[in-house]
């Protein structure tokens, strides 16, 4: 009986040790809840509504009222036009583009006022573009890129995730990038 008790204790401690070394990472524990959509579909989460209305790939962009009037990409420009609004409360707009294992932030070569961003408020729609400077080799190695959009702190909150098939994206020489437009939703 005594040996059985000792065996049970050893097994329990060993199981606890194995479990301890296989705990989920904080990024998994606090992972956002992804709301998936395709281009043209509206996705609505707890506090965000977003629609990707267009995607283009170009070597050059022409931002509205910008100096210089044209920007060449280090790689290629991926220009995503979208509509975003908050649902319940204000939140800072965040976005990133996943290309295979790489994560791209939107380019900071455009002024903040030229990019879709800032504080989103309920039922006030912001229409504009995110512009990403993406390595052509990375883009050529994948069939689909994924745009992620959320408001504020994404932990345990909704995050819109839009899959964009690269083969379906318009490839053009140049893209006009308009300043964001705001209106009541």
């Amino acid at each position, binding site marked *: 009986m005594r040996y059985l008790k000792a065996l049970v204790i050893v097994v329990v401690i060993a199981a606890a040790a194995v479990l301890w070394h296989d705990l989920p990472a904080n990024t998994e524990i606090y992972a956002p809840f992804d709301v998936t959509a395709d281009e043209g579909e509206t996705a609505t989460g707890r506090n965000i509504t977003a629609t990707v209305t267009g995607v283009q790939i170009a070597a050059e962009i022409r931002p509205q009222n910008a100096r210089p009037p044209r920007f060449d990409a280090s790689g290629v420009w991926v220009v995503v036009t979208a509509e975003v609004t908050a*649902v*319940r*409360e*204000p939140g800072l707009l965040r976005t990133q583009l996943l290309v295979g294992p790489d994560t791209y932030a939107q380019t900071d070569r455009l002024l903040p006022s030229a990019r879709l961003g800032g*504080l989103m*408020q*309920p*039922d*006030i729609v912001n229409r504009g573009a995110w512009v990403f400077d993406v390595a052509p080799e990375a883009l050529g190695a994948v069939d689909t890129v994924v745009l992620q959009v959320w408001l504020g702190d994404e932990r345990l909150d909704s995050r819109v995730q839009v899959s964009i098939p690269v083969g379906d994206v318009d490839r053009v020489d140049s893209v006009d990038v308009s300043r964001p*437009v*705001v*209106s*009541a*939703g």
Partner: protein
Amino acid sequence: MKLWQRNAVGAAVSAAALTVIVATDLWPDWATYWDSTHVDNIVAVGEVGDADGQTWQVESIRHLNTDLPAGTVLNVVTVERTGTPTEMGCIGVITDGERRWSAEGVGGYGDLPPAGISSLCGTPGPVQFNFLLPGDVMPTAVDVTDAQGRILVRLLL
């Protein structure tokens, strides 16, 4: 030591550890969240109320609709405030009972407040908040919060 005594000591140590974790780790965040969703100080329409060592009263509400995004209205709320604030800085939030909108920041819609009136409670005295709202929203209250979102006072409209 008998078994029940060892169990009692173990329970006491566990309870003490749990108390320390709750008090130092969980409680501050929970208290901040609670204060951002529950209001202790509510000032009725036309009344003067006390909060944060000051008196608060809605002095005026103006509705502007020029040079604004399509379908929106700017609600300019001026709050009369007297006394010495214990905390400098505040954020104005307007609500219709279901949704919440932050006041416009520097460079946002609407004019800067006139001299002697602050927009972020940066100085003692009256404060003005500019709220850009969809035209069909009927706001019911303005919350004055601190930087962490804790509601100092709710002013009914």
